[in-house]
């Protein structure tokens, strides 16, 4: 009778010990892995540029001229058309994120990496780019050329 009882109890005790030890080990491993995983995530970089920057002074650009400026954390392209009109576009190619440039011989925006071509409104017109470049608003305030993100609505 007693031995039968022992046989009944033994596996339960063993299972309890296994659960406690295994659970402890599992918790320990998780408590080591969790901080490491969180540590690996880089902290977000503050976008100090905001939505608006002074890109240039009036007179910096000649007609058919262009300039790459820092807009937040990414580059933007400010250009003056042959007619003397300012345009501002994101300079990040929508294909594989190379930085585009203004071709004053073609009067188009060109990405050297894979020969992508955009018109002066940022529309992708030839080559691999799948989407148009984001266009920014340009204002002239006294002698400063200010570019800003277009607000929704």
């Amino acid at each position, binding site marked *: 009778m007693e031995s039968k009882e022992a046989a009944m109890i033994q596996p339960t005790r063993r299972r309890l010990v296994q659960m406690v030890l295994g659970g402890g080990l599992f918790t*320990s491993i998780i408590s080591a892995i969790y*901080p*490491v995983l*969180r*540590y*690996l*995530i*880089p*902290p977000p970089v503050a976008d100090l540029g905001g939505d608006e920057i002074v890109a240039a002074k009036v007179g910096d650009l000649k007609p058919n001229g262009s300039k790459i400026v820092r807009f937040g954390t990414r580059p933007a392209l400010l250009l003056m058309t042959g007619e003397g009109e300012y345009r501002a576009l994101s300079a990040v190619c929508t294909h594989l994120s190379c930085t585009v440039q203004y071709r004053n011989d073609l009067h188009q925006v060109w990405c050297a990496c894979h020969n992508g071509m955009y018109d002066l409104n940022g529309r992708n017109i030839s080559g691999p780019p799948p989407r148009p470049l984001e266009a920014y608003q340009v204002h002239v305030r006294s002698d400063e050329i200010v570019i800003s993100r277009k607000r929704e609505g």
Partner: protein
Amino acid sequence: MRLLTRVRDWLDERIHWADLIAPLKKKTVPAHGLSYWYFLGGITLFLFGIQVCTGILLLLYYRPGANEAFESVQYVMTRVQFGWLVRSIHSWAANLMILTAFAHMFSVIFFRAYRKPRELTWLSGMVLLFLALGFGFSGYLLPWNTLAFFATKVGTEITGQVPGIGHHLMVFLRGGEEVTGATLTRFFGFHVAVLPGLTTLFILIHLALVQYFGMSVPPGVEEHWKASPGEARQMKFFPNFFLRELMAWYIALGVLGALAAILPWELGTKADPFAPAPAGIRPEWYFMFMFQTLKKTPAKIAFLDGEVVGILLFGVAGLVWTLLPFFDQAGKGRGRKLFMGAAIFALVYIVAMTVYGCMAK
């Protein structure tokens, strides 16, 4: 489980896995009242593993350079999630590792485990200890804080006092005449490339020698076992000793985690090479006994510079200590007593001077 068996069978067919692990299965460890001392080397190895892991993590954010180092460590500690914990563990484990390495060394001395045929094991262990001290010295500077800056200045200046090659050695360490950003670049290179490479090599040699010779049995126990062979006990390495060692590692991890979380390592203030040294400049505690001795050495001993005498004495003592196995005359009663007396003196001196140095303002 079935998959696991299949993988094992697959490996066994190709690399004869069973033959490879056969020696591990046969390996035994002497079982006696002093067996616990065998854990110390393993704990030191475990802490080294922690250092490698946390060191790699710190490398993800650390930037060497006088203008960036302090800021990047500050960034790790304030902006990166759990960054304070990772750095704190790295600092604490470094200190605990030096401590367990010293304890391991003294246990080897007092149980005379270095005796024939294990002299090479001792020598490789001493090399590892010096490498660990090099890790400590180079790593101390990396956060580029005031304390570390001046400690490195003093430490490398002391190297410069060595007659003959001293100055060249100092310039080599500093990467110039002064401690500057160039020193930081060098120390960073030593700390993350040179020292880890050498240490890995010597750990492999050290472990291979330990496997080859097996664990040393303390002389007292050995005599007793020789007198009554029936009482000689061995413990299987796997799993009996291995699981005990794992428990020791687990406890070490617990102590480490508690220390790192409750007493996070401080960063201090950024080093300014043109500011006067603040009060309380001190090296890491494991250099304290040397630092304190040099501080207490008179400026002139006979016609010699006191500092130089002190440095030479430490150099000679270090060399003698490294070559200890060759001075230990086995079986000679008086020589043995003298030897043990010297070892005890060394331990007491190191402990006393460390405590004295840490208490002194």
